[in-house]
């Protein structure tokens, strides 16, 4: 009993000192709790459906950030990975009867392979050329999809796929749970030593090579990792929609991903996630103004970026937290002294 009390107290102290101490961490915790608890209060199918798609696209946007935000490999054709994930998952489920929990990860491996295939020609390109080249890949794949309708279903896509689960609430828990887990994994990757190398490659690739790092390997690694997470999102999407069609490869989707991520704030993982959670439901909500929907949407995005060029979330974070000038630890904005080194803030 005493031991249990000890661990409880220890856990509480950790919780207080590690999470409650910073508003951003508290916000992430509250966000996760809210997602988990939501079905206890409402099971409105329309709302759950929107949130399911939001979670899927949040995984997708975060995976884009891993490649384009962190590693600096501007990808304007990220829908490629999403589409490959969706098609592979659909085919595996339909032709080989793989259940979703097998078809989705194996489908994502298809996207990893795509990342490798696409990554190799992209190794020598950067900036605008890279962006244009990546833009072309999903268009090429769409051409292939239309060329072999026997396998891909052509324009109609592949339908008749198994549902993800038997109830919408379970679907919701699977997708949001995966978002929380995969989001955490991606954040951990960017926080690791590999993450430092990704950052460095974005900053100056030649200097990374001169430091003895095989940049080719790490760039391909970024392509594959990003492809994997985007492929999972694609597989989930296929099982939720119960079809996988050419719309998963659309240029519009690729651009949508970039808009979500930039709006939320790139090079952060949580920024793109927040971007999707704001913009995707917003666009749905704007259906009440069908005529000016896109206009209002574009206006909101533009205004935000005009005043918050770094994206929404970094802007908010910089206003509720500040960095200690001495030890670079973040503190709540209203503190006078750093919580660690007691240096004066401001």
């Amino acid at each position: 009993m005493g031991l249990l009390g000890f661990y409880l107290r220890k856990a509480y102290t950790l919780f207080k000192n590690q999470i409650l101490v910073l508003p951003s961490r508290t916000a992430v915790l509250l966000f996760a709790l809210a997602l988990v608890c939501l079905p206890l209060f409402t099971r409105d199918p329309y709302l759950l459906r929107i949130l399911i798609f939001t979670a899927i696209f949040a995984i997708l946007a975060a995976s884009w950030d891993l490649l384009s935000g962190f590693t600096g490999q501007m990808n304007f054709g990220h829908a490629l990975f999403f589409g490959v994930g969706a098609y592979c998952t659909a085919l595996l489920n339909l032709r080989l009867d793989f259940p979703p929990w097998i078809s989705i990860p194996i489908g994502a491996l298809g996207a990893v392979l795509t990342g490798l295939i696409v990554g190799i020609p992209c190794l020598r390109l950067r900036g605008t050329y890279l962006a244009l080249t990546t833009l072309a890949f999903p268009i090429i794949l769409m051409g292939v999809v239309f060329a072999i309708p026997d396998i891909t279903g052509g324009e109609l896509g592949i339908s008749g796929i198994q549902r993800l689960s038997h109830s919408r609430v379970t679907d919701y828990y699977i997708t949001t749970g995966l978002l929380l887990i995969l989001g955490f994994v991606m954040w951990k990757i960017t926080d690791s030593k590999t993450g430092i190398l990704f950052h460095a490659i974005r900053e100056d690739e030649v200097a990374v090579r001169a430091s003895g790092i095989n940049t080719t390997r790490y760039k391909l690694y970024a392509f594959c990792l990003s492809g994997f997470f985007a492929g999972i999102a694609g597989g989930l999407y296929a099982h939720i929609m119960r079809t996988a069609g050419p719309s998963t490869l659309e240029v519009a989707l690729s651009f949508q991903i970039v808009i979500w991520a930039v709006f939320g704030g790139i090079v952060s993982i949580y920024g793109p996630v927040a971007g999707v959670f704001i913009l995707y439901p917003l666009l749905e909500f704007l259906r009440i103004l069908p005529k000016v929907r896109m206009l209002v949407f574009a206006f909101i995005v533009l205004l935000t970026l005009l005043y918050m060029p770094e994206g929404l979330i970094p802007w908010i974070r910089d206003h509720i937290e500040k960095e200690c000038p001495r030890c670079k630890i973040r503190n709540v904005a209203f503190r006078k002294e750093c919580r660690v080194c007691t240096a004066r803030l401001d």
Partner: protein
Amino acid sequence: MAHGFLEVERLQKSFGGLRAINEVSFSMERTEMLGLIGPNGAGKTTLLRLITAVLRPDSGRVRFKGKNVVGRRTWDVVNQGIACTFQNMRPFRRLPIIANVMVSCLSPRAMKRGEWVKRVEAKAMDALEFAGISDMALEKASTLSQGDLKRLEVARAIATEPELLLLDEPFGGLSPAETDLMAQSIRRLHKGGRFGRLHSEGPAMIIVEHKLQQLMKIVDRIVVLDFGTVIADGVPDEVVQNEDVIKAYLGEGGI
């Protein structure tokens, strides 16, 4: 098998119509400190980049410890034991200084040699300590002054624990006092030993520098480049007496 430490043979490199490096040959020993001087645009930086395989020569050979360097990838060469600094410093500006050095510490060479060092940060910190900027480890590289950026370049290069270190104007932008400090660090590094968790092999060095007086105190041999060709090669005192060298420098000074 008799082969030299570093052998450069009839190296050529042109940029468009410009012969930046023309038939350059020299070799150096494992223990040597070589000064590489010459007027602006003589091709010194280009030569260093050819040695580290950042650039590919049009013809000629570079051999390091008997192994061909030409055509290999830069990271391969670095992991083989050649490290270089950039004349126009190239830090990762938005990363903290410690992370700048950690990139080098994560190279296979550094990881293999520091097996007993579990924490990459600690080793990076010792490289910074050696370069004298450990107090600023957490600052972003974009906040550094010119002189500190030079030191960061040095810290990054030595973090791979090279056997051959190429320094491109290590004194550039440093004050006289800072220059003395840097010169002292270079000498200590060449002697070899252990600096915290960082191990120095006592690397051979090629130092490109315009501050001749300082350079002469450190190096025991000087190679002079002019218009991409070697016009003199010998001990410092002889080289500065050499007529061709004086002409090359005066010709430049006369402008």
